């Protein structure tokens, strides 16, 4: 049995100066290749959860920490953030917080230089990533001149270039237009094929549900739901936890209220359309 990439054991964390803990007694494991979608109301502890994964908590944020977080078998308390960051790539909610270089190309090479890779390898990976993320024509542009979506793409590209064991994205579509958000989902599904373990924090579940293998729901710092999308999203109490369920699911829940239950829980429009049209054609045959 391979070791889980993430092993969180009874973690509670309260920020200094805050009256209530942001994360309360959370325990879970994430295995290699899982794509985990994390959701919940604003202020429910989702970003704190991300900070646990790359050691920003307890190393950077002051507060009361209890429990243990193991990343690839190593206790995050025992290694500094810069060592952990080789294994855990974090893409922030606001890309301005992580772009530091004077050109897109330099931005991507920056992390690779810090990994101490040979020059040829840095050039090879940078070229590959620029093409893979469609950033080739922007290579000489300073990040501050990019649009919100391009910045987010650059931030993601720079992190993916480092080939982390675990990729953590905190509201990655916040600044993206819908088509760019879908393209991001496509890029992530390709990374999933390469067995990258991915954690995505999002309110807008419509885009990422089709590629998630598991959904976590936080409420007031507690992990209140944990399971496959079909199981978690079709819980009609979910909206009371501040979760915007995908519209496809909402529609099926409404249909159920109206007495129509479909045989398969559809997570995509095409699956829903398939079922509805076969249902109606079977009616026509009668």
């Amino acid at each position: 049995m391979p070791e889980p990439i993430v092993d969180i054991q009874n973690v509670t964390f309260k920020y200094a100066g805050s009256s209530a803990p942001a994360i309360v007694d959370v325990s879970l494991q994430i295995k290699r290749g899982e794509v985990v979608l994390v959701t919940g109301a604003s202020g429910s502890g989702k970003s704190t959860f991300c900070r646990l994964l790359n050691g920003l908590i307890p190393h950077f944020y002051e507060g009361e920490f209890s429990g243990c977080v193991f990343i690839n078998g190593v206790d995050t308390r025992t290694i500094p953030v810069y060592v952990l960051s080789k294994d855990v790539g974090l893409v922030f909610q606001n890309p301005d917080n992580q772009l530091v270089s004077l050109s897109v190309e330099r931005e991507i090479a920056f992390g690779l230089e810090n990994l101490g890779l040979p020059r040829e390898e840095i050039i090879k990976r940078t070229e590959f990533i620029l093409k893979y993320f469609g950033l080739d024509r922007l290579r000489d542009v300073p990040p501050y001149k990019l649009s919100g979506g391009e910045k987010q793409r650059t931030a993601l590209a720079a992190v993916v270039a480092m080939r982390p064991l675990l990729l953590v994205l905190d509201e990655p579509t916040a600044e993206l237009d819908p088509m760019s958000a879908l393209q991001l989902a496509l890029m992530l599904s390709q990374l999933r094929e390469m067995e990258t373990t991915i954690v995505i924090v999002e309110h807008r579940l419509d885009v990422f549900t089709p590629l998630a293998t598991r959904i976590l729901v936080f409420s007031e710092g507690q992990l209140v739901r944990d399971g496959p999308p079909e199981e978690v999203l079709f819980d009609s109490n979910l909206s009371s936890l501040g979760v915007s369920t995908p519209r496809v699911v909402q529609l099926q829940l409404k249909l159920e209220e109206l007495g129509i239950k479909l045989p398969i829980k559809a997570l995509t429009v095409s699956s829903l359309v398939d079922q509805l049209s076969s249902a109606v054609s079977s009616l026509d045959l009668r």
Partner: protein
Amino acid sequence: MISVERVCFWYSRGATVLDDVSLTISDGDVVLLMGENGSGKTTLAKLLNGLLKPKSGRVVVDGLDTREHSVAELCRIVGYVPQNPEHQFFAENAAEEVAFGLRNLGLGDKEALDEALSVLRKFGLERYASTPPWQLSGGEMKRLSIASVYAMQPKYLILDEPTIGQDAKQKKALIDLIFGMKAEGKAVLVITHDVEWASELGADKVVLLSKGKVIAEGVPEDIFFNYTLLKSCNLVPPVSVDLYAHLSKRGFSVPRSLDYGVLAESIALKLGGSSVVSGSI
């Protein structure tokens, strides 16, 4: 009324960001401004309260040409909530953040603070009154930035990506807030990429911006059901429109509606609203 008349804009020595843009925001209007990343939406927003001045053409706010009036004057009429809330915070706690603008409007210390607390309550942020803004979560920061501008009761409110980080309940509350302002005869311009939320907002009109030009303007039903238009702005249709299109293609007719309730009822009616649809079909 805000009137944008044949405006062109470019940043120093840069390419043209807005190219001959004209737009009217009437009192009581809820207007959606949508378009791809980099289409010029935020630049247009900054022209409306005088933060930027047009290179050619003009922007007139209630009869005031923005080139002839200061931002300080204009921002009392046009409130702008930027996309990244942390760009505007400077006070030591959330209550002070909201009270600052109110004091500038001439309210006394206590009056400003009382009003700030009541606005924080409206935005579900009362428990953070004495918390530093940068200790809030991303979504809460966003709400605080809206609250601090809303508190000044501008006649026109511009919201740049207001749903970022907001959960279902907060998104619904945002719609109520926008329509509360509309009921008072105020106008709200919303810039968003959140197509689902936008399609349920019930805006008076949608303006599509692409590469610095207004490429379409119309009622939500006309814009959201136009695949070609949406695609040209890097937008994807809401699920309701996708369902309508795919079901129609299969001869399953449902009403052309952005309302999921209407869709569900019509589907249920068609399927007899009876029992479980059997797994064998």
